């Protein structure tokens, strides 16, 4: 029997697919960013329905509050209002299709490995991604934890930031000269 939750899930999935398609296929860069916003929101709702609220919130915070705004900035500063993007070449299309097929295969493989054949009943462990458990895992130096990768990534980000500032300063200097 199909439950209310299932109907919701399928609707959400359909919406997600349509929006993802729009993100990729829209000729207007701004429209595709908006579609991307929809994708993020739908994914967040999916996470919530999987009882992974923390992940959903993190997704919203990072993508909507951060990345999407930067993408919007980039779009605003580079594209014309109502401007259309040129058609990608055949080579690019081919590469894109191959890459997405490959990643789909990887994802399906992973899903198969963890959950077996599609449609099998899985018991979702509640609060698998609660704030507390995530916090403990992030700050756990042991093999289960992510303290060392987390710190490594922080160092990488710091290096990237310093590098960005250095580049910006250099270009400002050369700009002043010219």
């Amino acid at each position: 029997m199909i439950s209310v939750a299932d109907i919701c899930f399928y609707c959400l999935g359909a919406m997600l697919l349509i929006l993802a398609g729009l993100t990729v296929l829209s000729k207007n860069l701004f429209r595709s960013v908006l579609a991307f916003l929809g994708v993020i929101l739908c994914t967040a709702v999916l996470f919530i329905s999987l009882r992974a609220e923390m992940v959903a919130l993190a997704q919203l915070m990072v993508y909507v509050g951060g990345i999407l705004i930067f993408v919007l900035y980039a779009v605003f500063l580079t594209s014309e209002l109502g401007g259309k993007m040129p058609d990608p070449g055949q080579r690019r299309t081919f590469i894109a299709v191959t890459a997405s097929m490959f990643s789909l295969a990887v994802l399906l493989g992973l899903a198969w490995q963890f959950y077996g054949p599609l449609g099998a009943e899985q018991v979702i462990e509640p609060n698998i991604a609660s704030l507390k458990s995530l916090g403990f895992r992030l700050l756990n130096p042991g093999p289960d934890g992510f303290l060392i990768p987390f710190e490594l990534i922080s160092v990488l980000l710091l290096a990237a930031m310093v590098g960005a500032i250095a580049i910006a300063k250099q270009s400002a200097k050369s700009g002043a000269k010219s």
Partner: protein
Amino acid sequence: MTPLSITHPLGDWIRQQLPSPFAAIANGLIAVIAIAMLVVVTAIFLVWLERKVCARFQARLGPTRVGPFGLLQPVADAIKLLMKENIRPRTVDQLAYFLAPLLPITGSFLVLIVIPFDHNLQVLDPDAGIVYVTAVSGMGILGVLIGGWGSNNKYSLLGSMRAGAQLFSYELSMVLCMLLIVMASGTASLRNIVLSQQGTILDWWIFKLPVAGLVAFLLFIVSSTAELNRGPLDLSEAEQELTGGFHTEYTGISFSMFFLAEFVNMFAAAGLGATLFLGGFLAPQIGWHPVDQLLAFIPGFIWFAAKAYFLIFLYMWTRWTFPRLRIDHLLSLEWKFLLPASLANLLLAATLVLFKWVIP
């Protein structure tokens, strides 16, 4: 996080009466309608309050004609705004132009869902309430950005660019201030944060952490003023420079959406400040029994409103006193002063919590 549930006698009663999925839907609907009513009523009242308070600051009377004390003035304004022709300039990006006004109001609506108005008056109490608030408040920025760009007006574009830079940077120090409370109280759920402040007034986080609490409160007020886009930090509107900034091209109902969101956001931010620092819905207790009982007799939502409106008064007071900062000063204020200060304050608070140097 429990799925949509009202922890209120009404919610329990509905759950008894109806089978479970319908009860959940009914409860959800009630919650949504209640929040929507709250949004509308608060916005209307705040518009009136702002006009009245600002008038008194400026040695004026403010609205007096429509209704007693001009209380119906915002209703008249709203009718006027709704009746107005919704002018759409020919060169705007239609989707962006129509979508933008909806986003900020959605954001403030979503924030109000987790604010604990009283012991049993909260739509949703996620574990990660603070994270939720920061996550959904990003919607407001998006609306401003999209609207400013979609209007195809240089003033709007300048305003939205300013807004992006400003809101993005001030979110950092605001989150750090909230993080301080999370650290001190050991929970990120807004309800539990309130409950962690039980006791006398000195148990409110503003006083409980010596110095650090007060500093965090002030930093929160400053950075939330910037987040709210209110004077003296209303750079993206900046009427005198940008003739209205991102909403230059908006009229009628779509303008009023931005307008409404601004006021509801102010209420939400003030409610958040009251929750985090001023004990939320808890009655102020001074440690002397008879008075305490009297104070505790007053329902929690009234205390909550009183605290929130105190903060709103602070917002209004600064808005109608100070001149506006310049955009580069605003950003250097954040990056050179507020952010280091809130980081240092976080460190101080961590030390205090670690050695338990809190007011008992």
